[in-house]
């Protein structure tokens, strides 16, 4: 079986003016001095297009923190990639947006932490909400695809109706409502952020009703909190199946959290070409087929649908990256999840910890 990568997630920097309590970036971040140069990135984009990659997601950290962003967009578009910018908006204004659009930016995904300024700034650990509101006005006036991303968790899920109405007002064509996923910094704040079952059930109904009401106006994607799922998510649609991530220092990973897995050597684009990395590197082949699977995955009917779930989560929660994702109710380690859910559904929420920016 051969796999064609479709999307390149380029984490062009870990620097970020926000300090979100649910940041999914690794707990150890790359410093500015380790970042790939403009020419390094351009070479990566060209190799990516040759491999069959269609979409380039420029993310971070905050991608606008790089002063060469326009050049990177132009080069990516020149390599025939579809250009997505995933941003907090901090560092953007009208003239920079016009520059990015002229360079070929196709789509902008702007994050909001809440509909209200107080909580939004509290969750972000930064006063950024008012700026984001102004940016939404600027973006909607232009002909560019516009998605609003709203991260939801225990502290704002009860106001989901308001959050959706707020997203409508921004003029976005698409709303991504993303429950926090527990990797990186977010894992440290898990018990402050995981919603209760009651909150989750109510939110599912709200999303369904909103989808019906907003048909043809705004599409809604909903990222489920997988701790509450019966079966695991098909993480990255399979390890090394469709997506490739490059971190700020040039390391290639099958997903953004994979650095936590011990014993894997992630190849660097400074030393290897992307084709070798994708096709031949041991790291990308480690969990690619089904040969690594233990029971109950190995004989499970769902194994080609969910690929045994997330390898990083298996390591983080079961201590073994080659175990069934403990989220799965068939996993022998599922009690780990049940314990957490019991605590979250029984106790008051805990306090969270803010993260600091890498220098």
């Amino acid at each position: 079986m051969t796999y064609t990568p479709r999307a390149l997630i380029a984490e062009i920097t870990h620097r970020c003016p926000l300090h979100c309590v649910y940041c999914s970036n690794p707990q150890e971040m790359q410093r500015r001095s380790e970042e790939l140069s403009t020419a390094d990135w351009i070479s990566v984009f060209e190799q990516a297009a040759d491999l069959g990659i269609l979409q380039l997601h420029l993310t971070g950290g905050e991608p606008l923190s790089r002063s060469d962003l326009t050049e990177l967009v132009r080069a990516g578009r020149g390599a025939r990639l579809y250009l997505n910018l995933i941003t907090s908006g901090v560092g953007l204004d009208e003239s920079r947006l016009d520059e990015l659009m002229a360079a070929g930016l196709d789509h902008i995904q702007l994050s909001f932490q809440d509909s209200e300024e107080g909580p939004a700034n509290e969750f972000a650990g930064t006063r950024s909400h008012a700026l984001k509101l102004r940016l939404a006005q600027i973006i909607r006036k232009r002909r560019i695809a516009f998605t609003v991303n709203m991260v939801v968790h225990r502290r704002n899920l009860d106001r989901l109706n308001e959050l959706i109405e707020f997203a409508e007002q921004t003029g976005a064509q698409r709303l991504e409502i993303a429950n926090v996923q527990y990797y990186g910094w977010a894992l440290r704040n898990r018990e402050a952020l995981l919603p209760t079952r009651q909150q989750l059930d109510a939110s599912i109904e709200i999303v369904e009703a909103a989808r019906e009401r907003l048909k043809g106006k705004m599409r809604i994607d909903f990222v489920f909190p997988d701790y509450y799922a019966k079966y695991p998510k098909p993480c990255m649609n399979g390890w090394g199946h469709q997506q490739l991530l490059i971190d700020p220092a040039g390391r290639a990973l099958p997903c953004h959290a994979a650095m936590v897995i011990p014993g894997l050597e992630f190849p660097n684009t400074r030393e290897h070409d992307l084709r070798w990395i994708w096709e031949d590197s041991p790291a990308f082949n480690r969990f690619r087929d089904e040969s690594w699977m233990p029971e109950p995955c190995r004989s499970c009917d769902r194994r080609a649908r969910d690929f045994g779930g997330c390898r990083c989560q298996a390591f983080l929660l079961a201590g073994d990256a080659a175990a069934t994702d403990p989220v799965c109710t068939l996993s022998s380690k599922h009690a780990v999840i049940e314990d957490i859910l019991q605590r979250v559904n029984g106790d008051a929420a805990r306090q969270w910890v803010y993260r600091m920016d890498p220098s």
Partner: protein
Amino acid sequence: MSVMERNRVPRLAPGCRLNAAGGPEDLLLIPEGALRLRGPARVIVELCNGERTLADIVEELQRHYPSAQPARIETEAVALLARLRERGVLEYT
């Protein structure tokens, strides 16, 4: 098609565009990924340039596929554009 429908001018929504022609597959690139275009779908989408009316597009297609039934071409083109419109990748100027 009603007269009103015939005069509508479709174009791709912002952030939606065709991949380069002549590759191994015909794709419509969109913010969430790509839609695979089968059969004559690429030709139909290419005609939606924000200048042609629906009637112009159907006429062009009928010229392009002279051996197909004209009524069938119209039905299929209109149905495809309606699906794309519902999916949010096509709009009317």
